[in-house]
């Protein structure tokens, strides 16, 4: 301790600043390095496996050969189902909280609940979905149950980002519209929502990209271990990329590593693509927004 203190006294401001910068720089590097390494490994080991057949064919020989087409499609179905449920529900909830709710105990409770929901581990959502949708509501292990579970999981993200987007629409737009004798609901629909839409979409896409990558919520609610065909309806099970990856890695012996890495690469690629879309949308709003 005393040694440290002495050091501290001897060092000039300049040296101290350089040390601080170096430490900060190292910290950021430590954050970036795993991302780069993961990507490098995935591309190096997974890219050789990826070809047209891998993306469009059914798995064969107990998933040790063939493609991952049903898993890709399953994830797309789940994502679509999740959007259909979570987007309207989340946006309507945000509209209520921002535009209608008065600041009272109930509103505060709702807000606290939303924050807490965002911190619930995904496996808890999975069990909740199993209990409510699969068993109680008798949806069975199905795309419907899985989408609903994922939707509930990403609702906090959608509600929070939609609330922010709605609140950032200037009050003067609302006043201008109301002062023209336009009703409150019409004002929200015609002025507030269009101006909040880009922000809402960004949040939705981030939520969706999380939904696409989670395994736990779909584990008990929709995911099929091995189903080399496409689902027939929303009450059918389906395969999904994250679960398929889990299965390939731990449940099936003697799978070629290229197959596992290829699957991981497709999944990460899809999530990145979604995030990238969100970033592009946000950048476009920033450049267009003049208020």
């Amino acid at each position, binding site marked *: 301790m005393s040694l440290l203190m002495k050091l501290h006294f001897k060092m000039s401001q300049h040296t101290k600043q350089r040390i601080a910068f170096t430490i900060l720089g190292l910290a950021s590097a430590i954050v970036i390095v795993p991302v780069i390494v993961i990507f490098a490994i995935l591309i190096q080991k997974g890219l050789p496996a990826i070809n047209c057949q891998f993306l469009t064919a059914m798995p064969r020989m107990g998933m040790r050969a063939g493609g991952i087409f049903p898993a890709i499609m399953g994830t797309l179905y789940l994502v679509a189902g999740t959007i259909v449920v979570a987007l309207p529900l989340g946006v309507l909830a945000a509209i209520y909280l921002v535009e209608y709710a*008065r600041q009272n105990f109930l509103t505060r409770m709702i807000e606290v609940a939303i924050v807490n929901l965002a911190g619930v581990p995904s496996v808890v959502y999975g069990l909740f979905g199993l209990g409510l949708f699969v068993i109680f509501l008798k949806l069975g292990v199905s795309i419907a149950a899985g989408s609903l579970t994922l939707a509930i999981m990403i609702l906090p993200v959608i509600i929070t980002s939609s609330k922010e987007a709605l609140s950032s629409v200037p009050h*003067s737009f609302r006043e*201008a519209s109301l002062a023209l004798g*336009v009703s409150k609901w019409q004002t929200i629909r015609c002025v507030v929502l269009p101006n909040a839409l880009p922000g809402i979409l960004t949040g939705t896409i981030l939520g969706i990209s999380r939904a696409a990558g989670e395994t736990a919520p779909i584990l008990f609610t929709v995911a099929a271990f091995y189903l080399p065909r496409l689902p027939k309806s929303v009450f059918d099970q389906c395969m999904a990329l994250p679960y398929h990856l889990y299965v390939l890695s731990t449940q099936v012996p003697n799978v070629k590593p290229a197959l596992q890495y290829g699957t991981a690469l497709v999944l990460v690629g899809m999530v990145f693509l979604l995030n990238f879309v969100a970033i592009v949308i946000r950048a476009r709003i920033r450049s267009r927004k003049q208020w």
Partner: protein
Amino acid sequence: MNKIETRDLSLFYGAFQALIGVDIAITEKMITALIGPSGCGKSTLLRTLNRMNDLIDGVRVTGNVLIDGKDIYGEKTDLVELRKKVGMVFQRPNPFPLSVFDNIAYGPRTHGIKRQSELEGIVETALTHVELWDTLKDKLDRFALNLSLEQQQRLCIARLVAVTPDIVLMDEPCSALDPFATGKIEELMFELKKAYTIVIVTHNMQQAARVSDRAGFILLGRLVEYGETRQVFTNPREKQTEEYITGRFG
């Protein structure tokens, strides 16, 4: 009959009383100016006339506001109808982030006019009314926020004119504009007076003297003096009015 009349009008923001027993009678097709130091309650009074204060939590109003003899704080008041009839121009020009055309067509559209030809007619009339038609007739698809501030304020007035109100409330409509643009908007007010009853809030005394027929002086939530503009400015009845006008405070 008076177009607008308030009777013992008081307004509270929570526990704070911003208007204290205001009685004012506003005549049709005239410009009535509300003057007074900043924070005295001019905007608050103006906004009671189309019930824009309702948007603020914790506002309580007592007394009456009669428009064409009907109490707008009565139970049967339809806020949408009221605000169609009593329009408002704000301190900062606040066009929507849309094209010029869509800004003006916004009101009529939401009120149910869908035919494009009809909307085009309305836009032309409204822009002509605010003397923007010649400048903008070939640029109706221009983004409204790219216009100059004066043009934006004119556009906001045109947007209002397009829903054919009866009364136009203006809350310091020129405070964001330079003197030249201010003069232009004042000329426009004279033009609008032929068709509308105008109530304007301003802290600019010269402006009140130039444009208004009647003037009311407000101080700390009370309407201290109200009368013909010339009388209020040259021969005020109240000492406080005189002090304010001669620049002793405010």
